């Protein structure tokens, strides 16, 4: 008996308030299982250490003390795909690197998400030539695109917050 993931159809709320309203009396806290699972997933989503180019330096900047990505549950940059839930494609993906990227994505256990950080990962950016894959969505399914070249650490963290909102929308149906 497994949980089948089905992406929700609710639009992402503009303001950042949580989509589930709290019940009145707080005697016994009841919550749907979706919310518990999504809450657990969003608050400890470990990114994979996958820095390619300039965006990787900004990702390191986001991980370092000033912007501190670990406030959002991303404490560890796991080196191996086996222990990571989120793949941040930080940098330009060359033709030689695309099969490696696809293999790493496949080796990540479900549930997994992909953030394509920077213009080069999202659409080839400045480099429109033979060597660069024009957009990572030709190789792996992307959940959130973060614009910028390189995006500021706040932009990356905002991308991660958007991903958290997206994950919070997911609904599960029990598979018999």
């Amino acid at each position, binding site marked *: *008996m*497994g*949980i*089948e993931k089905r992406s929700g159809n609710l639009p992402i709320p503009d303001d950042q308030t949580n989509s589930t309203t709290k019940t009145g009396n707080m005697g016994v806290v009841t919550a749907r299982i979706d919310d518990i699972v999504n809450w657990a997933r969003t608050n400890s989503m470990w990114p994979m250490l996958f820095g390619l180019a300039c965006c990787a330096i900004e990702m390191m900047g986001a991980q370092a003390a000033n912007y501190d990505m670990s406030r959002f549950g991303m404490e560890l940059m796991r080196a*191996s*795909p*086996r222990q990571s839930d989120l793949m941040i494609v930080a940098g330009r993906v060359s033709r030689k690197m695309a099969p*490696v*990227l696809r*293999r*790493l994505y*496949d*080796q990540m*256990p*479900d549930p997994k998400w992909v953030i394509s950080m920077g213009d080069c990962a999202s659409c080839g950016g400045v480099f429109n030539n033979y060597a660069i894959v024009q957009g990572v969505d030709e190789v792996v399914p992307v959940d959130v695109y973060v614009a910028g070249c390189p995006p500021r650490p706040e932009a990356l963290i905002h991308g991660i917050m958007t991903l958290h909102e997206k994950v919070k929308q997911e609904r599960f149906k029990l598979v018999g």
Partner: protein
Amino acid sequence: MDIELLPIIVLIVLATGLAILVVGIGHFFGPRRPTARKSAPYESGMRPFGPGTRRMPIAFYLVAVLFILFDIEVVFFLPWAVVFRQLGLFGLIEMVIFIVILLAGYIYAWKAGALEWE
């Protein structure tokens, strides 16, 4: 079964229970979708090659054995430390002898170069 042991039993039961619970939920409710590409060994991004288990140099075994040896030594400290007050001087001397014996072994291993890799 006098009452003093009850807390330890409760602790053991809780610890193992929680462990089994967590692993069990993951095992039963977690979806399993093994694909050939996902179960291929991780070779830092490259295609895996060669047999998974290969001949290991003996030096690894040596380091492992030395670790286990001195780890067990530390395990013997724990019960001694608990009743350290009651044993008094006799306990101290006993343990010092125990440590000196193992220290001799340690120094021998060190001088024989077991700790260096080569």
